[in-house]
């Protein structure tokens, strides 16, 4: 039972255009969401996050939108750059204290930015 889903395994976009990555979740106890970026042979690196009390968070070229009623979030990258080519993971944290800070990840979306 996948609680976090990224339904698009891959995305190809032209340099300078917008990349939109989508993520859906099923667990209503999730209260904090993160996006991680991963290059081959490296660990995931944190990109941006959003608390469930917000619907938007922006950091430079990266914006995350959260729609709680739809249990959906998206990551917008604009403008896309060739260095953004990587696998992007959506992750969520439960508000249940006993769960600590463990993250539940989606399956990832591979982004290719073409020059």
């Amino acid at each position, binding site marked *: 039972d996948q609680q976090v889903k990224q339904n698009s395994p891959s995305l190809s976009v032209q340099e300078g255009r917008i990349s939109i990555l989508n993520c859906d979740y099923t667990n209503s106890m999730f209260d904090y969401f*993160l996006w991680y970026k991963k290059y081959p042979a490296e*660990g995931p690196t944190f990109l941006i996050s959003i608390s469930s009390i917000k619907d938007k968070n922006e950091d430079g070229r990266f914006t995350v939108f959260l729609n709680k009623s739809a249990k959906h979030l998206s990551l917008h990258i604009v403008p896309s750059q060739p260095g953004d080519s990587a696998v992007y993971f959506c992750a969520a944290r439960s508000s249940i*204290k*006993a769960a*600590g*800070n*463990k993250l539940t*990840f989606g399956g990832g979306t591979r982004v290719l930015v073409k020059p």
Partner: protein
Amino acid sequence: GAGVSQTPSNKVTEKGKYVELRCDPISGHTALYWYRQSLGQGPEFLIYFQGTGAADDSGLPNDRFFAVRPEGSVSTLKIQRTERGDSAVYLCASSPTGQSSYNEQFFGPGTRLTVL
């Protein structure tokens, strides 16, 4: 400062053997996590330490898997009687605290385990 380090970076072993994977978290981070990433999938939670104690080991797949963090810093993930299905990248992450705070987790580069 140094990030999370993991050793070895690659480990090839034979079915039935015992392996140990090591994680050095960022200095001062009290929370430490182990995840496993199989090919084409996202990382899956295995175990979480708060200090020296395992606060949540609900992700360990079976009793062949065990992890320790005796001094609240370095952690070792131990796998007994390895099986081919254990082949994956094992990721370690740490964060300043682990409870009720919005702390990002910092990941190491992972150990790629291959069981032949």
